[in-house]
């Protein structure tokens, strides 16, 4: 079916008129940019027009924009760069370069458009993503570039996000989204920070729905860290409720329906050869406990398979077959999760593939109210009678049942034969995630180095990196870790040991022990021996950007630290000065710093707990003061001893 001709013609006329006056091209002189938009901006989008037509299985997008580059920091927005794959094509690329006065000085030369593989720009070892790019390489500021292109996609499973403000240092004069789709094909929308001034139009004619959003005068802003999913960027996310991917029809009218689609796409790919099935049974037959069976096969996966992301064509969405992964010993998150599922199936333990948005960026995490396809990762869930075992199949280090920071505490979509089930992965609070450290130091004036014993227990998410390093057996990585964790500038590790422990709740722990010789802790002068024991502890995120805060402060993890420094004072010296005690508590933290002297031993005890939560922007000043106060307290333990 084709779009109604009248509407289509109307749209194209509107598009062309919106960017020209009586057929003449708009010139974009830099002097016409409002001062409020230039403030703190490296570039200003003068006009951004997106036309998107969504039909069953087909998406047509026409994008045209003009951006004025104000300085050399804005050059990164000046080039044209669009990716495409086997699911879509890019065509009709046009462009022009306009000087500060608004006069066109160059046109895009079609034979100079670069078309390169995107290999090397992501974690994929092989995929079918390519990049078309063009850069006028102009460097006399300000200048404006205008580009236009058409994208045609034979899959509507993923609709591009309308994100007119590319960066916090880019302002926007005017941005328009024109969307047209079948009336019967609903689209799920999620709008963020679309100002009240945005104009929204709804036209329904015949079988089609026509919507327009218009945004104007969006200023640049100072980036605010730790804002979680809150962001001042205006955007519209869309998901077609009826879509096609590689010839397969799917529905996103509910999480159940979306999950069903992915279940169907990936089902019947979990078969293993008879030899492999026999092997799995032999590995687990004598193990009575189900968790231990799962753990055994998980260990087999970790020891025999490695992560390689080959994601071309449908393989970006559909897993490779389990028997292929079994044969070659590598796969991506989908392949490894599916292989693990197949191994469990071979011994009669059911499990579910799980789609999830992994990583630290909370902006794109799934929400129950907005059914959409924003997943970038797959894990596995093994439901037991009284427990659930979560498996991160791309990890060579994590124990079975523990997910780690990559995928913990967030929504996920279980793929079952009854469709998708919207669920949540486990969180690891401060009872599970903590550091317990005991350090003992012997001060010996006259010696180059001081002896130190360092004992730390890392638990939960704070041990993730160390666990990986420990299990990788890589000496350089371990040394790098030690350099980061040890506060001493110059040291030698005489002896070290690492041991992994696991608690009842399957929370991994790592015990670290080191005997260290550290140089330059103390300096002798005529009268004194002054000692500075570095702590170098940054326990709170530094979110101070020098501006007012508008967004809530999101602390997404609570943790605790219990640190004890036992300092053996040298014989014949008298303690002249030492730090004072400090203790306070507020919404964000509780902090206790006490120092006790008992004979020739000075003990510093530090207890710190950070609370998880979303705190209003009005608390920003409190947070900054708390962070500075703690940072200052945890910089160094300074002692002065008289001879």
């Amino acid at each position, binding site marked *: 079916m084709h779009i109604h001709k009248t509407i289509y013609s109307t749209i194209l006329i509107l598009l062309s008129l919106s960017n020209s006056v009586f057929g003449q091209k708009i010139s974009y002189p830099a002097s016409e940019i409002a001062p409020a938009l230039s403030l703190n901006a490296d570039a200003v989008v003068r006009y951004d027009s997106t036309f998107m037509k969504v039909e069953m299985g087909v998406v047509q997008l026409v994008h045209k924009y003009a951006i004025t580059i104000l300085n050399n920091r804005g050059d990164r927005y000046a080039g044209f760069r669009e990716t495409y794959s086997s699911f879509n094509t890019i065509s009709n690329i046009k462009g022009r370069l306009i000087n500060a006065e608004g006069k066109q000085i160059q046109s895009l030369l079609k034979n100079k458009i670069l*078309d390169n593989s995107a290999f090397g720009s992501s974690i994929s070892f092989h995929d079918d993503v390519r990049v078309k790019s063009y850069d006028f390489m102009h460097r006399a500021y300000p200048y404006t570039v205008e580009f236009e292109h058409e994208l045609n996609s034979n899959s509507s499973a993923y609709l591009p996000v309308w994100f007119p403000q590319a960066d916090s240092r880019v302002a926007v004069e005017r941005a328009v989204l024109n969307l047209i789709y079948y009336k019967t094909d609903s689209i799920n929308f999620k709008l963020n920070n679309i100002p009240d001034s945005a104009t929204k139009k709804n036209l329904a004619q015949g079988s089609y729905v026509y919507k327009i959003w218009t945004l104007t005068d969006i200023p640049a802003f100072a980036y605010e860290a730790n804002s979680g999913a809150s962001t001042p960027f205006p955007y519209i996310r869309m998901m077609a409720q009826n879509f096609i991917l590689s010839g397969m029809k799917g529905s996103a009218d509910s999480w159940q329906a979306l999950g069903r689609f992915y279940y169907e796409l990936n089902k019947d790919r979990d078969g293993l050869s008879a030899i492999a099935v026999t092997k799995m049974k032999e590995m687990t037959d004598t193990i009575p406990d189900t968790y231990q069976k799962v753990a055994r096969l998980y260990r087999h996966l970790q020891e025999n398979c490695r992560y390689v992301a080959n994601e071309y064509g449908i393989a970006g969405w559909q897993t490779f077959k389990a028997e292929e992964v079994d044969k070659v010993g590598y796969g991506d998150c989908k392949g490894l999760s599916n292989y693990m599922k197949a191994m469990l199936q071979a011994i009669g333990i059911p499990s579910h593939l799980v789609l999830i948005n992994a990583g630290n960026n909370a902006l794109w995490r799934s929400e129950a109210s907005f059914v959409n396809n924003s997943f970038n990762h797959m894990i596995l869930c093994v439901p037991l009678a009284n427990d659930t075992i979560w498996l991160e199949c791309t990890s060579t280090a994590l124990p079975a049942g523990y997910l780690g920071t990559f995928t913990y505490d967030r929504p996920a979509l279980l793929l079952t034969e009854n469709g998708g089930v919207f669920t949540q992965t486990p969180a690891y609070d401060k009872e599970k995630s903590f550091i317990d450290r005991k350090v003992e130091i012997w001060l010996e004036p006259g010696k180059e180095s001081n002896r130190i014993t360092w004992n730390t227990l890392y638990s939960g998410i704070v041990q993730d990196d160390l666990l990986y390093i420990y299990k990788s057996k890589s000496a350089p*990585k371990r040394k790098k870790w030690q350099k980061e964790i040890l506060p001493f500038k*110059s040291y030698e590790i005489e002896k070290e040991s690492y041991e992994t422990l696991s608690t009842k709740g399957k929370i991994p722990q790592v015990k670290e022990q080191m005997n260290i010789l550290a140089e330059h802790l103390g300096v002798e*002068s005529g*009268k004194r021996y002054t000692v500075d024991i570095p702590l170098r502890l940054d326990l709170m995120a530094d979110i101070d950007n020098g501006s007012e805060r508008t967004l809530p402060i999101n602390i997404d993890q609570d943790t605790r630290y219990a640190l004890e420094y036992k300092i053996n004072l040298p014989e014949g010296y008298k303690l002249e*000065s030492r730090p004072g005690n400090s203790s306070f508590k507020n919404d964000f933290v509780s902090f206790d710093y006490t120092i006790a002297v008992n004979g020739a031993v000075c003990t510093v005890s530090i207890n710190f707990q950070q609370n998880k939560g979303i705190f209003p922007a009005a608390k920003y000043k409190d947070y900054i003061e708390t962070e500075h106060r703690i940072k200052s307290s945890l910089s160094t333990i300074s002692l002065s001893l008289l001879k």
Partner: protein
Amino acid sequence: MCTTRIASFLVLLSSLCGFTSNAQNFRVESNQDSLLYYLKSEADQQYPDADATILYNLGKTELVYSGGISNSKYEIAFKVYNASEIGDLADVIIPHSSGGKISKIEATTYNLENGKIVETKLEKSNILIDEYTIGVDVVKFNIPGIKDGSVVRYTYTCEFGPLLYSWDFQKNYPVRFSRFDFYANKAYILTPKVNTDIPFKEYSSLKKYNQSKEPAASCEEMTEYQYQIARTWTRRNIAPFNKESFLYNEKIYKERVKIFYNGYAGNGYYYPIVENWEKFNKEVWYDKTFNMVFQKNQFLDQTLKSIIGDTRDSIEIAQKIFYHVQNEIKLNNRGVEIDQIAKLKAGNEMSINKYLTALYLRAGFTSDIILLSNKYFEKIDPILFNIDDLSNIVCRVVVKNVSYVASASSKSLPFGYLPLSYYNGYARIVNKEGGAINLTPALAIDNNNYSVSLKPLKKDAADYEMKVKVEYGVYSAIGIREEWNKDSLALINRIKGNSRDYNTIEGFKVNKIYVENSKDLSKKFSLIIEGELKWAQNVGNIMIEPYFFKTFSENPLKEKNKRKHPVEFDCVTVNKFKFFMQLPDHFEIDEVPEKKTLVFGSPTLLSFNNTVIANEKTNTIVINYQYESAATPIPETEAEDLRNFFNEMLKTYAQKIVVKRK
């Protein structure tokens, strides 16, 4: 059978420290005993921390046509100890020109399972091809079946591909055996340059060479095809490369061989690419490539008139011309001629510095183009004529009989300074006569001045004003100037937030941070921090760390074990620090840091001089230190002494001022 197997195994055992004649004994695909031995090995005996050991690495190139077209064969076998850390070996990426062809790819992984050797082969369907960009394709494959303990072998052939003219014997893993064969028509003029820890024993017979057990052996012999010469090098038991501090470009320190192609010659003919630098200068560079620069170029007069104006002093004129080009012509990657660049206002490094040189010449200065290799390339050789290593173009101008080098394409350096990597020794001058110049790091000087002053706001007051001023040297200023110009607010917040970096006294509050000369490269970039300090009223003693700025906050020579490579300094560094403090009347000086003078090398290469004046009468303390280092490389044998020198400096920095209540 049994005796033979035992004998083979004993040969293998005895060869832990030395190897039999050639890699054939170790070809894992054809020698089961060898394969089994490696499969059972649990760690590299010499380097137990190694994630893998290269068992053998073989490269063979045959130069087929002039212009660098060749056929090459590559083979490698390695033992895996730590599969999660060897991505660079396990995932193979072979770029090649689209006109060439990668073929005969074979890869096999061997594992020992329940005492049996299990093979997993790479399937053709898993060989991936990526059309990377115009003229360049990439062949990729992932080695299947790799895990801890595996032995892997893969090989491929490159037909009509680019010339494999250099070979790294040394890698980031231990290498047991490495061999490079280079076959070429005898007419080609080829000069191999070898960098290895031990000299090669030279053989004139391939037969004897192949039987050799030497740790380093080479041979050059005519092959059975009388038109062809075989050159071959073998190295055994090479340690993994260890990156050390103060080492610019590890590539030039790795054990390797590089072949320079200089033309071809035969019966009655001789066609060198570069006969000698002087001839190349005249016939190619001066007469052709850079010819326009040395023409009369009258079209530049108008531009020069507007730049020079009424200025008479020649050094000022030279600087004005330089800053005009630096500010007006933006750097991009397009090459344009000097008559176009002023209109386009942009060009690449070559275009910009050609334009600069042309302007100087037209203004009446003596000026030339300098061609150099930066430190990420091989050094230019006076004899080898390695033009492929020429990486950058800058300008030289003579003003009042003093030579200045300049690069107007470097937007963060003033007149007379080049990027540090450009000071890489021998470089070529392009003018009518030609010549050479030595761009030694000693020409690059970084001169930093730091001052801290602490004075009472009013007499007898507890409130003090504190002023910290840093005048950055040319190179130290680059990063911070750029950071200030990019986002001054972010930098101010960073400085305020990281008060630890400035070792500020407890109670110090920053009021103002500002800079001088953020845009004017001809002047020193200065950062000034002003604040106030309230002396604590109810304490007996106060300790102050006076060394706000330290040349090093930790010993830069981190390695305590024996160093292998010389210590290289980028430039001459001079750091001068001054601390002045006026005590409040109710406090007196109790202790101050000690004086110290340190000298390293004879003649002196590094010096550190710390002086302290504590004046009880005026109740003031003045501390000065000066650190100077020359840009002369220091031999690795002296690294431990140098480390001790730095340690003594750090001890000085750790000292404090103690003042006590009267």
